[in-house]
């Protein structure tokens, strides 16, 4: 006898959470940025001790998922390579957790320039801006 028919559906929130985790772990990603409403929700959640609001927009459609991520990086990380790395990592993480095929849309919304940029850049293997005066 076959068992009862079971369907399995992964919610948007799951994909969003997994994607946010994976994207945050990519070297060079300083922060994920969300829109104003998401920021205020996140702050309210932090103050009230509730769960974080998702900072990633995710949509599941059948066996396909679509994820939009806004990331902030800092000078010294190649934006193109960073975007590719985020896409790879997020897509792999979502596939591993949920089995969904994922289209990852990455926007680098900001690049931090000053502060800790030099020593952070020195510790990475990504291509770097030649220091001024080196030529």
């Amino acid at each position, binding site marked *: 006898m076959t068992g009862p028919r079971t369907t399995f559906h992964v919610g948007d929130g799951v994909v969003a959470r997994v994607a946010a985790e994976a994207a945050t772990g990519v070297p060079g990603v300083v922060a994920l*940025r*969300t*829109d*104003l409403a*998401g*920021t*205020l929700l*996140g*702050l309210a959640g*932090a*103050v009230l001790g509730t769960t974080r609001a998702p900072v990633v927009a995710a949509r599941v459609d059948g066996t396909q998922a679509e994820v939009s991520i*806004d990331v902030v990086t800092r*000078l*010294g990380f*190649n*934006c*193109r*390579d*960073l*975007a*590719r790395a985020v*896409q*790879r990592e997020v*897509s792999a993480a979502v596939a591993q957790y949920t089995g969904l095929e994922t*289209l*990852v*849309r*990455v*926007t*680098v*919304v*900001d*690049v931090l*320039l*000053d502060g800790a940029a030099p020593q952070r850049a020195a510790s990475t293997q990504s*291509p*770097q*801006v*030649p*220091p*001024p*005066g080196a*030529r």
Partner: protein
Amino acid sequence: MAVSPHDGRGRVAQDDAGAHLPAQGDVVEPLACGRDAATVWDHAEAGTLDAHERECPHCGAAVADARGLEAMVSRLAAQPLVPPPTVVDRVVGAVLAELRPRDLLVLDSPYGPAALDATAAAAVLRGVVDAMDGMRARSCRISRPAGDAGRPVPPAEVSMTVTARFGIELASATARVRQMVLAAGEQALGVPVTRVDIEVVDVFDLPQPSSPAGREGR
């Protein structure tokens, strides 16, 4: 004590509300006993509950509401408010992101759509040029024309205005800036740059203690 909660237009009729008659047009539901809850709250706060308000279960519930809210509010108010350290940054960033028109540069990626904020890219190029000896970037604009579907996106174009330190050779300065922008575009942004328009709009001179001639304008 006949109370008709609503007449045809939703107006509340009250026979003994005293000072708390609602303004014309306001719709206020009275308690089941006919009292206005606001009056009861005021009395509870002032400690002037009358005999009815002490006995009536409806008024008693309203008084409990008032006490409960008071306790909750004062408890929350007494808690020290500790904002996360980056609260201002996060709100300001979100507001700016909301206000700013989003110009995006396409980033080439085999894994899916990727883009870079043009304002951030311009800021990177400005910062890189600023760090050069004898050069200051003033404005910078970078744009990348949208490609046709299925064709590779054409490279970006940069236009920039700079100021140079007095005494710098301008011909070599622009060549340096050009090289710097091309290199930074490729290495820091990952955006190929095909065209750099550089306009030197001004010269500046740093105060030099050894040459008094350079200080006359100050």
